[in-house]
């Protein structure tokens, strides 16, 4: 691209020199740009919107707690109260040890909520952004990224509440927590890939957002969140093993609940799934990038 050789001192010049448009041919045909250079260009465009990204995320969070007395504290308190209620109820019903079971449940529920909110919220992100996309030039992947980043911040805050709960219940805080950022990064990549893919698909098939929601509701029971995996009859175990969501939750369980460093294979499977999701999202984006605006 011509512009990449330009003096990069001026952010605006960079942004706008990207308006260079490659001949599109038939809109749904893949354009003559390699996948690698497409990703490079996309990331370059995004790098100019770093400030926009943080502004959007911060504003999303602010809006959630605007005008409440406790403000941001709610993002810690909300998950904390939910956890306390559920731990109490479940330990009464199932006569489980609240310390063990509470932590068990929440190492499952928190990553699950992160995935659920990113994916369902992300799937509508482009449709909802119609007003922006038709008025200013913004790369399409910006909007799913905003949703996933907002949820990631929420997730980190919820994890902190879990740590607080853990301290109250006397959970040992071990060195294994050092691997938490890596697990978070992997899940972030997966969520972004999935959200990007679904956001684009939803522009073409609006029903998809409802279908996704229903499917995820079913999947919830196929992830050992509210019950331990050993409560599952062995013949159904395969259903859990083919479920990609299981591997992400498993990762967080090992780190927080078991307090151990995950084994290489515990890292490998979710990483591969995450990268695949990301590639799939980018492939679809490359194919449809110049068509999306006409479908909104």
């Amino acid at each position, binding site marked *: 691209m011509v512009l990449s050789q330009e003096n990069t001192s001026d952010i605006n010049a960079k*942004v706008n020199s990207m308006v260079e448009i490659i001949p599109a041919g038939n809109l749904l045909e893949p354009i003559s740009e390699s996948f690698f250079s497409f990703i490079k260009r996309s990331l370059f465009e995004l790098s100019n919107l770093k400030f926009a990204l943080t502004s959007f995320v911060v504003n999303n969070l602010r809006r959630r707690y605007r005008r409440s007395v406790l403000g941001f504290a709610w993002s810690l308190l909300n998950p904390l109260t939910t956890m306390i209620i559920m731990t109490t109820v479940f330990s009464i019903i199932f006569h489980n040890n609240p310390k063990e079971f509470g932590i068990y449940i929440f190492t499952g529920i928190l990553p699950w909520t992160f995935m659920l909110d990113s994916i369902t919220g992300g799937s509508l992100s482009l449709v909802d952004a119609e007003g*922006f996309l038709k008025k200013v030039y913004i790369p399409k992947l910006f909007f799913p990224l905003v949703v996933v980043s907002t949820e990631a911040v929420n997730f980190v805050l919820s994890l902190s509440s879990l740590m607080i709960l853990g301290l109250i219940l006397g959970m040992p805080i071990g060195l294994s927590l050092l691997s938490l950022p890596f697990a978070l990064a992997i899940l972030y990549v997966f969520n972004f890939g999935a959200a990007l893919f679904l956001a684009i698909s939803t522009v073409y098939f609006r029903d998809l957002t409802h279908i996704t929601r229903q499917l995820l509701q079913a999947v919830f029971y196929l992830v050992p969140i509210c019950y331990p995996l050993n409560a599952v009859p062995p013949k159904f175990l395969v259903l859990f093993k083919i479920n990609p969501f299981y591997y992400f939750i498993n990762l967080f369980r090992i780190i927080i609940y078991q307090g151990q460093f995950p084994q290489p294979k515990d890292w490998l499977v979710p990483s591969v799934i995450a990268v695949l999701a990301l590639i799939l999202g980018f492939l679809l984006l490359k194919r449809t990038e110049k068509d999306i605006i006409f479908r909104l």
Partner: protein
Amino acid sequence: MSENVYIDVENAWLKFRIYKNRSPALKEAIISKFKPKPNITEITEFDALKNINLNLRGGDRVGLVGLNGAGKSTLLKMIVGIYPPKFGKVHVRGKVTPLIELGTGFDVELSGRENIFLNGALLGRSYKQMKSLEQEIIEFSELGEFIDLPIKYYSSGMHGRLAFSIGTIVDPEILIVDEIFATGDAHFVNKATNRMKALFTNSQIVMLVSHDTDKIIDLCNRVLVLHKGEVINDGSPKEMVDYYLKEIVN
């Protein structure tokens, strides 16, 4: 004038598709697979822009005239990159300030100050840049202490003043204007008109869409007449405006 600022458009076509059924629902997409005649999603295509060729260099002040729906705003949006052309090429180089719709991305729940940053971010500016412009924007908009109130409490005049002040704060190399003339009281309109004039003089390339033909003659040195997506005439402002008023309006 710097050689580095230009707009080149080569044989650009832009097609819009109109869906009778705007977004094909998944169910229908599946049903239509089994139906002998897939007639559920009828698509009509129409050419919003046909065979556009433009080579603009520093010093060009181009006015676009045409009836409603002639493709004037669409052409501006194609140059800004919102609509990619179906065929042909669009090359733009230079710092572009699009004054197409002011106040894009305003969040009514946020304060005026927060919106300055949000809007600036959407225009591709950095935090540092916005921080240095913040005070100037607030002063120009004359919002005073209202700047820290959520903009949902603003009058439409205040809203417009803020949007105008953010949009026009930086001198662009390429200025793209779509019928933006400030709203507000006489005092602000006067100030804004001067700001616009300064922007016009300081920009290297200007593209202006307006139905105010006097303004076009006054501000531009070249005018394109658009009709049904085509540039049907191109020349000096006075001649083109006469042509447009005679041949197309009547």
